[in-house]
């Protein structure tokens, strides 16, 4: 916990952070920003306690929080907070237009992390923010970034150990052609994000993503299902599921 003595990072004193604080801040940094109810789930505490913890972060100037959308307050890390986590992401508050999407992706991560297999395998969630950071100044290229990658370590006690999955949270309907094109793009990509363009799709190399996991809202699901039917044999590597409960912004705003 940050100290309650008023000595803060800004004052040149590193506040004491517990393990739980570090995990929560890393999670928050990965996801751009997190709503308080979801952060409470990450920290394993109730919402009032999560509010108190984030108040500590705020006092240390590691985080900001505000009610920028429907439902509980959003928390995001400031530049000192990101620096404390060793992450070189641009320190910006979550974009208002992406709040619903960010919440959905966070709920997907929480649902997966709650499973026994995920914990047993020690899988790694590589967030879109990390992927985007790896793209560096090349953001703007036509590459589609998935909402996350999940890396399953070799030797993990699951049948898909060593695989890398792409995760896509779909809240709204895109066109069928666009959805199918994204599916193909993800499933045929061979290189990491940020690699030279020539390596992005190298013939003869195994694909980067063993499968893509689509988590859909009821509105988006039919298009995604139809898109899967259009991608031929690649469809075997497309998993479609519903977004977990609580993925929508409270009040249904999207």
């Amino acid at each position, binding site marked *: 916990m940050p100290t309650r003595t008023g000595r803060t990072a800004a004052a040149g004193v590193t506040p004491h952070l517990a393990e739980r604080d570090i995990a929560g801040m890393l999670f928050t940094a990965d996801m751009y920003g997190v709503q308080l109810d979801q952060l409470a789930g990450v920290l394993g505490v109730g919402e009032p306690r999560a509010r108190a913890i984030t108040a500590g972060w705020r006092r240390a100037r590691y985080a900001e929080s505000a009610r920028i959308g429907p439902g509980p307050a959003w928390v995001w890390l400031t530049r000192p907070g990101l620096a404390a986590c060793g992450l070189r992401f641009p320190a910006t508050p979550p974009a208002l237009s992406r709040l619903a999407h960010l919440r959905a992706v966070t709920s997907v991560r929480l649902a997966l992390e709650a499973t026994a297999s995920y914990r047993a395998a020690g899988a790694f969630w590589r967030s879109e923010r990390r992927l985007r950071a790896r793209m560096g100044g090349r953001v703007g290229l036509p590459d589609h970034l998935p909402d996350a990658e999940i890396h399953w370590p070799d030797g993990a006690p699951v049948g898909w150990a060593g695989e890398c999955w792409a995760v896509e949270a779909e809240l709204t309907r895109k066109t069928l052609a666009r959805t199918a094109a994204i599916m193909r793009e993800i499933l045929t990509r061979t290189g990491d994000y940020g690699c030279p363009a020539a390596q992005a799709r190298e013939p003869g190399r195994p694909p980067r993503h063993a499968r893509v996991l689509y988590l859909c809202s009821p509105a988006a699901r039919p298009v995604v*299902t139809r898109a899967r039917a259009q991608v031929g044999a690649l469809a*075997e590597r497309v998993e479609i*599921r519903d977004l977990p409960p609580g993925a929508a912004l409270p009040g249904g705003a999207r």
Partner: protein
Amino acid sequence: MIRRYLGLAVLLTGLRLLGRLILLLAGLAAVLAAAPVSMVAVAALVAAWLAGWPPARLYRAALWCLPMVAVWLAATAAAARSWPRVAAAPYLAWLAMWHQAAAGSVALAAVTIAPVAVPLGLVAGGLAWSRRIYAMQTGAGGLSLTAPVAFDRRQWRHQVRAARARIAAPGAVPLLSRRGAVVAGAVIRTVGHRSPALAALPYQRLRSHQVVIGTTGTGKTTLLLRLWAGFLARGLQRHAAGEGQRPLLVVLDCKGGADSRRVADRARRVLREAGARSTAIWPDEATLSLWALPPQQLTTTLVDMIEHGSGGAAYYTDVMEAVVALAVGAPAGPPASTAEFLARLDAGWLTAAYAAGRAGDAALLRSAAGHIGDIALRFRTLFRRLGGGLDGPGGFGDADVWYCILEGTSEIAVAEAQARALVDLLASFAAHGRGQDRDILLAVDEFSAVSRRLPIWQLYERARSLGLAVQVSAQSWPGLAAREDERYRIASTADGGIWLLRTPHPEPVTGLAGSRPVADTSRRLRRVPVWSRQGMSRMRLAPVADPALIRSLGVGQAAYIYRGGVTFVQVKRLIAAPAAVTGARAADRTPGAARPAAAMAGQPAGRGAGDGPARPPDAGPLLDEAFGGEHG
């Protein structure tokens, strides 16, 4: 005079008000005097409102209190040894309750009066709730004109919430009830049916024809899996107890593609949990032999598998049938494989085969000789597209479940031919083979893909005598059959009931559920919100299954229409076993010559070199745990 008249009017009004006040005070006094009963009644009323319970549930709860009352009276009798004291026990308990409450012992007071107050309060709450529902249903209650509509919507929401809570509770919805009925899920609401907490179907209902209609993403596959698992589990129980024959489930999934294969894998895992020893997935892992059909049936099936026209084309159909009959009925015996059959479609072979035969056959052969080459070409094309799935070995008797995947989306003509062949094989198995010793359920999913050339209503009508139940599912009413009369024929012979999930045009099916008399009350509005006491009621007929409600059903909700009533059900998803069986292992276990899917013509092409790695290991259990299963 006027003054006297006005005085009288004022006096009458005053007396009326006074009377009402006295009544109100008397009512309040009664409520206060019977405070424990009033409190239980209010609590019961609120609980029933929140959970959308029918009043009968409160009455049943009151009945369940009777043992408590009996024990209490027995204890009183044993202590007092005087019948008058037992008769006066409720009154004495009431008096004691007030004294204890006045002394500050509220808990003791509650315990003292509970044997009397709880059942009476439940009955009072039930009566009040019943009265409220009646007033709303007849349109006689509520402050505003739309109050009954709002009340109904709110109650629906409450009932859905209660049903969802019930299916979410671990172990609350078993696959089979204690009496062996198949439990589909939690009851949301009933009209014309009893209103238990769980929707349970007797096994015999699944041994009758059923129809399932619902669009994509409404939970149709989840419902079907549950019904199939229930059929198998109960059938195996009965078989083990010597009460029935071993069940056999045959599923024709007419959608095809990767999605069907995913459902097949899930079905295999779910049905294994239900007791199925082996699930054969056709044609990917197991095969059937078309050539096992009796010769006459084989001729008919082969001819029907080829699409042919009417009018002038009927001539060629007759020629084809004659040639096929000759090839199948040759003196050497019926063909045993596709290759053998195709080899027989040759003028030279047939001439040699019938050289010593009857004169009529030779004459027929001579007149048809010019067409034999064309007929052979058509069959060669058909069997190339069909692949080897029907070329054996294997039969329906070799497994507990056959999951047959037909490529109805990409290859409609092939799927139609396959469906025709499979249904004929099954009918023959049921009529002549070991199927006579099996309870067979044929489930045809996405029937619209093959409905054009699979007159399933014919099977419906003769299936009963074969011991074969047919369950047809489609995305919509038009998907049930090509013609309206065939649709009605299928729906009206579904004596096991009709399942309706969300569908945009439920009217034809809801019409089959019939109508029921309801009271319509009109009231006169004096001024908002004061209603006059005058009004008029009349009886009218309303549909038993409300089409608007069915249009708005959520995912996993279904309306079960049976014998003029409807039960709305929140279907409980079956979670599959974690370990999926890999293709190679399944091939070892399942009957028929198992071959890789890619080796079968007519099936989706196998993965190309550039398409990526081999089929990834099944992560279904993880995803099911995190996000729930895939919807049908």
